[in-house]
């Protein structure tokens, strides 16, 4: 296997270097560095959005989620993604119209402008920081665990994590957002190819889709229906997850940025459709891997399942591809998130552009170091931590949608309510307050309450004349 890891690893590293160098320009402007010149075409757009969205959470987390919770996991992610791409179409149109003719410097900066209140930007940045960093950390950790299983004893887990963070920093520093987008394209294709190769191998173990579910019916029948053996996938959990995932393009800055930097409205809209198709293609084989795990490794822990299904049971070349595919999946998402945090920080800074860029780069470095430390200390299920990340940032959804859509001068109350919602959610995560009230999940209560507050704020706002800056188009 080592031979194949070197072969695929060198090809992958070569492509990353190529992507970085192709994106490198001397004396580039900060707009080019942070926003890739806002000129991303359809193919790159789909692949970068997909690579940022489908991470180790999909590559490792979803097979494990199917293995433990059964087929309703499809609703948790695939149906939610299907609805999300429709919302992307709607929200993408509005945010692009909003930023038309103005320099987009991240969602935090935009939202501060919409509310004419810098607190809105700070609250948004706080939620992004709090919920993206642990998510980045656990993905780095996921890669480290996997590498440790592939090369036991060669490096400590933190050594792998440090290496991943270093690679991420180097190529984002050289090429900026454009390098990240190019490498995302490579990584998106790699992820799709590898997940299908392994998924197909797992499906072949059963001899087809029908025999697969027949066999699972004899092993653990609960896996074939909702809520699954753990009782987790209830309608309420799935509905709250839908709202959290729907809010991803609105509240996770790495996605909002990608919507804005697309070349044109038409490209953005076609990207939404293609992303929906990509989601179906990438999630489908995770069912096969999950069912394979349920058949052979139902009693095993997470790490043993990963090591067996992705490495030990596969031919050497496929196992090597799995390692490179996993690194690709993790890297593309983590660098997108870390870079987006840098971009949000830039939107909040004031002063000379050179000094802002220096501070932004320092910020990206600091966020990476914090994520590295999280990767050493965080222990959780990939999918559930990802869901917490989506829900945590999702709390900001009503505030952002109101700011972008409303043509009225609205009360800043929604900013304070969103901050309060964030604090309440954090208290429940820390176990200081319950996460269920009257049998309703707290995150669902927060989404509904803030949604209603946003509607009331709009209705009670005073109408104002919008002066749109002249555009070049």
């Amino acid at each position: 296997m080592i031979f194949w890891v070197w072969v695929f690893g060198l090809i992958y590293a070569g492509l990353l270097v190529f992507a970085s160098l192709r994106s490198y320009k001397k004396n580039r402007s900060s707009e080019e560095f942070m926003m890739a010149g806002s000129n991303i075409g359809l193919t790159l757009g789909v692949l970068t959005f997909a690579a940022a969205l489908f991470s180790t959470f999909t590559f490792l987390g979803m097979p494990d989620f199917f293995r433990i919770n059964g087929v309703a996991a499809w609703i948790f992610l695939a149906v939610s993604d299907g609805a999300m791409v429709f919302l992307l179409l709607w929200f993408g149109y509005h945010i692009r119209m909003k930023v038309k003719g103005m320099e987009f410097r991240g969602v935090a900066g935009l939202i501060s402008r919409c509310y004419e209140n810098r607190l809105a930007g700070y609250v948004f940045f706080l939620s992004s920081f709090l919920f993206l960093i642990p998510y980045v950390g656990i993905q780095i950790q996921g890669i480290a665990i996997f590498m440790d299983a592939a090369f036991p004893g060669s490096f400590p887990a933190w050594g792998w994590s440090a290496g991943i963070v270093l690679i991420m920093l180097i190529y984002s520093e050289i090429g900026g957002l454009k390098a990240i987008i190019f490498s995302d394209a490579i990584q998106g294709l790699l992820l799709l190819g590898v997940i299908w190769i392994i998924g197909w191998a797992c499906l072949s173990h059963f001899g087809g889709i029908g025999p697969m579910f027949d066999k699972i019916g004899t092993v653990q029948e609960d896996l074939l229906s909702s809520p699954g053996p753990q009782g987790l996938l209830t309608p309420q959990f799935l509905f709250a997850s839908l709202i959290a995932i729907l809010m991803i393009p609105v509240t996770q800055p790495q996605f909002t940025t990608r919507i804005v930097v697309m070349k044109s409205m038409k490209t953005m809209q076609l990207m939404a459709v293609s992303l929906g198709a990509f989601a179906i293609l990438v999630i489908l084989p995770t069912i096969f891997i999950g069912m394979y795990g349920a058949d052979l490794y139902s009693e095993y822990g997470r790490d043993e399942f990963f090591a067996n299904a992705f490495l030990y049971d596969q031919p050497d070349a496929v196992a090597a591809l799995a390692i490179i595919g996993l690194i690709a999946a993790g890297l593309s998402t983590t660098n997108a998130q870390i870079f987006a945090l840098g971009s949000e920080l830039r939107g909040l800074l004031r002063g000379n552009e050179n000094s802002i860029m220096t501070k932004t780069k320092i910020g990206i470095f600091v966020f990476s170091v914090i994520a590295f430390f999280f990767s050493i200390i965080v222990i959780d299920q990939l999918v559930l931590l990802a869901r917490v990340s989506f829900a945590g940032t999702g709390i900001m959804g009503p505030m952002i949608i109101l700011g972008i859509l409303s043509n009225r001068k609205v009360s800043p109350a929604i900013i304070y309510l969103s901050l309060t919602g964030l604090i309440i959610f954090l208290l429940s995560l820390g176990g200081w307050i319950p996460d269920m009230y009257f049998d309703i999940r707290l995150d669902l209560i927060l989404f509904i309450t803030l949604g209603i507050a946003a509607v009331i704020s709009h209705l009670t706002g005073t109408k104002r004349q919008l002066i749109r800056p002249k555009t070049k188009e």
Partner: protein
Amino acid sequence: MEKKRLYWRICCVAAIILSIITFTPLVIPQGVSKPELGGVPYSLWTSFVITVLLVILTYIGTRVHPGMQNEEEDL
């Protein structure tokens, strides 16, 4: 333009209805895996169909979105 606006609204309503029925016993009857389709459990094949329909609706949405009319940007 008015027709496009109407079609876009129909798309939005259809997407909302599809999303909501996913969480009803119509798609996820608790503890029930039949009737199967080609050996695929009930909740999986119904929710798969819903996912495909949502993507198709998104495509139709790109064709009928009223804002596209005003866009001068090219592909």
